[in-house]
């Protein structure tokens, strides 16, 4: 299907994009890789009358070291994150998960910023950024602001971004040797996650000092496995299996054609256990 007609503007800079957003109001949408926006336009689930193309903002395509953090530009493509040596060595979970997004075509077009700004809890990266306690840098007409991942995702396809704001950068802590794992359940190769689990495990003296676990597709927004995280804080490495039993506590995932709510909870428990085991061994 072909989308409805729209006007097309090219942003020369993040600031310019903000200006254009201000000019065109609610009817405008930023176009990054287009791999989330164009499909929903084709399905007529969105019908913006103006697209503001930020695809040429190459200065927003970067991965940089910034003290004990990594800064990643919003326009960085999934494939660039996947193959960045810096990301691989300092925040392996991100490079790994970016490599599980869709298929090679999707990874060459889709951007980190688009993946987050779209606000789809079925996307793989939001849950991982949540588990990483990432920070998002946002540019708007009033200047820049920074927001924690935990405050960014508001509801299904809704984020803290105002209509005239653009996400410009994400910052994640370096893992500094923490173990990690991402596990993604899909029935068919290269599909979206029915459930995904990202886990980051810090160890000290043979026990677990902290576990951070983020879920893909267990709610209308990415969520953390709080009960399991608490159970593991300061716990012995032998307590993983038991702690994973509570992974789905407090969640009420949807029942849909891909899986029942009950099955999603089952998957969350099994995948959490397996992810933690893998994180521990890494």
């Amino acid at each position: 299907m072909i989308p409805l007609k729209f006007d097309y503007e090219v942003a020369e800079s993040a600031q310019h994009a903000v200006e254009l957003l201000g000019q065109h109001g609610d009817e405008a949408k930023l176009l990054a890789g287009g791999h989330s926006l164009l499909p929903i336009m084709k399905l007529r689930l969105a019908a913006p009358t103006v697209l503001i193309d930020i695809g040429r903002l190459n200065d927003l395509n970067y991965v940089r070291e910034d003290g004990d953090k990594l800064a990643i530009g919003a326009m960085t493509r999934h494939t660039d994150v996947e193959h960045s040596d810096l990301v691989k060595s300092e925040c392996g979970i991100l490079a790994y998960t970016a490599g599980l997004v869709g298929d090679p075509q999707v990874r060459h077009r889709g951007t980190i910023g688009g993946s987050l700004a779209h606000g789809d809890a079925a996307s793989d990266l939001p849950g991982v950024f949540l588990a990483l306690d990432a920070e998002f840098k946002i540019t708007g007409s009033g200047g820049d602001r920074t927001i924690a991942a935990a405050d960014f995702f508001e509801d299904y396809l809704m984020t803290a971004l105002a209509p005239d704001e653009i996400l410009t950068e994400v910052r994640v802590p370096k893992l500094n040797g923490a173990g990690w794992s991402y596990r993604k359940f899909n029935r068919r190769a290269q599909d979206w996650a029915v459930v995904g689990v990202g886990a980051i495990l810090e160890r000290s003296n043979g026990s677990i000092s902290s576990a951070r676990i983020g879920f893909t597709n267990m709610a209308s927004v990415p969520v953390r496995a709080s009960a399991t995280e608490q159970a593991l804080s300061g716990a012995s490495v032998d307590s993983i299996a038991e702690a994973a039993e509570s992974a789905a506590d407090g969640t009420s995932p949807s029942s849909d054609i891909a899986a029942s709510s009950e099955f999603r909870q089952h998957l969350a428990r099994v995948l959490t256990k397996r992810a933690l085991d893998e994180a521990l061994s890494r």
Partner: protein
Amino acid sequence: MKAESAPTRERPKILPSNPGKIGESRPRADGVPKVRGEFEYSSDLRVDGMLWGATLRSPHPHANIWSIDTAEAEDMPGVYSVLTHEDVPGRKVYGMEVPDQPVLAWEHVRYEGEPIAVVAADHPETARRALEKIAVDYEILDPITDPAEALREDTPKLHLSGNVLKEVHIKHGDVEATADVVVSGEYEVGMQDQAFLGPESGMAVPDGRGGVDLFISTQWLHIDRDQIAESLDLPPEDVRLTLSGVGGAFGGREDLSMQIHSCMLALDAGRPVKMMYNREESFYGHVHRHPCKMEYEHGADREGNLVYVKARLVFDGGAYASSSNAVCLNAGTFACGPYDVPNARIDSYMLYTNNPPCGAMRGFGAVQVCFAHETQMDKLANKLGMNPVELRLKNAMKPGDKFPFGQTVPEPAPVAEILERVENMPMPEEEEIIGRDLRRLPGGVSNVTRGEGVKRGVGYAVGYKNIGFSAGFDDYSTASIALSVEDGEPIIYVHTAAAEVGQGGVTLQAQISRTELGVENVAVLPADTRIGSAGSTSASRQSYVTGGAVKMACEAVRGKVFERVREEFGDEFGGELSMEDGSVLAGNRRIVALAELLENGGIEETVVYRHKPTYPLDENGQGDAHFQFAFAAHRAVVEVDEELGLVRVVEIATAQDVGKIMNPQSLEGQIQGGVAQGLGLALLEEIQMKDGKVQNASFTDYLLPTILDMPPVRMEVLELADPDSPYGLKGVGEPPTISSTPAIVAALRDATGRELNRVPVKPEQLAGIEGEPIRRAPQPGSRGPVADDLGSEA
């Protein structure tokens, strides 16, 4: 951008190619262009000044229509035509077997997506908006979505004829027979979609004299033409069809979709009209494989000899008849599987409901029952403590046995042989589970397991099916062969109306002609209705029937060539005449080059070819209903993640009798593709229905297996000639789909010990979140859970 083609009544110049002889693999003419995106599908048709058609569909599965108001849509700028049932010039219904389906609905709609009105406009978006302006006053009714409910006396009737569309009752031997060992079960097959990649599309061009030319993707030009002409109230010769590039079919293009609509719009607007469904609309635009619920009981003696089979099959035909009658008959006749069953009672029912109409799909009724009878055979083997392959071998049908429908099993029927072959093929290597490349684990690179919870299982199944149209149907094909000289070279023109839907029929026709006439340059003309019918490209029949027609036409041409030779050179040659290398030979001696012989005129012959007749079943379901049978067996090796319910199919091994390998590469493609479709039904593919509404009309949610989900296929092919068919060949397209599904599910049971009585199998079932586990004997070669009797069985 690829070229877009303007349809034309002028025949394009077809470049000849050397197709090779039968038995050789040759690249297909359409292969490279398809891979490069250059092939012209019917959706690429385009001509200046054309309009775009669009269809208004019912959002309700069951409703009365009190009024349809099109005034506002008609007034929209850019809209040329808005048509409803009132505008259908002729017969207001259509259908291949039973014309019960409205061209455009009036008074009632019986399924979600039923067409109500059509619009032609100068832009697809204008057409779509015009649809939104059509006001339909519906009275929503409760949909009847369960065939069992439709069957009940007190259920409202969806058609005047009642809710039972067809029933077939087969009584064979002693229908009251009893046995020492009995197993029973209830099985279910979900609604599979043909999921062809090229959605329904075509273009109708008015001829300015009241007639119309239609360029269309279809499986059978002539049955389309006849139905269109009836509804347009035109003589058939005023409705001319030309096959346009077809993007797959698998049965889903046997029924009409937009054919009559586009012709009506083109004639009304006086301009060419193109229609093209999008993916979502395509799910509403064609029939699907029938969902089916089956109750089975098998009785055997203690040695494992089958004594009887009882089966009750209830098919969901959906809202309209399509080819449901034939599916109901087919399923009934094949319900017992390829076994020698002395006594049988089969009751096969086809019901109307408010679900989408169901009809032809690869396997055509044999697929559903094969899942059930093969599961039953495994259950019986388990109960007897027998190896399941041994039980099958013991009961395998042989030439001379009687089918449950009374016909004698003809030669060849190598059921035991194909089973032994798949059993004896080498097993795939069993690699250490921990430490493997993720791509060789369930869930693949998604990294759900690194070996945790993974179990291997092995399963076997065998199935069979008729080839071609059965039960008294006059099943024929027409072919014309013209042999002439162009630029000093002999050339063959082949013309039939057989639809190339991706199966390689064009190449095969050329190969047959090349073989029969010894001429390398062969051009296959576009399929159209200028020549007589070729019948449908379905039921695995075109190689046999159109192949037979082409061969026969070549023989007629050859006869004429030899006549000319005798006229010119007498008939004392000291050897049989033959044609090779563009010449006529007598023994090894060259008599004359064709270029010389045909200098003053070519030879053209048109023939009609029929296979031997078939007969309808009598009231006890007995009769010589079928003319050819094809058999295949499959062995599946799977690995299952028991906790997550994810599956990796490790390998499919198959043996199939094809009579004669006509083109090895095409054959391999058919087997691979059929297995993929069988794998899809086993694990992924289902149109999910809720209250009569389709829940997953997209390729995001209707899960087609990808190349990454497909295992390697190990195949052995038998060439046991059918004495009645051209070259001894057998149809090959459907058997790979039939028994691959139950083999995979048997392997899943072997790995997990779960019952799995419904396909597609969901991860929930395998992980034990849905349904109860059973414990059963392992299959040969497996290391699955070990023996225990089936406590629950009678």
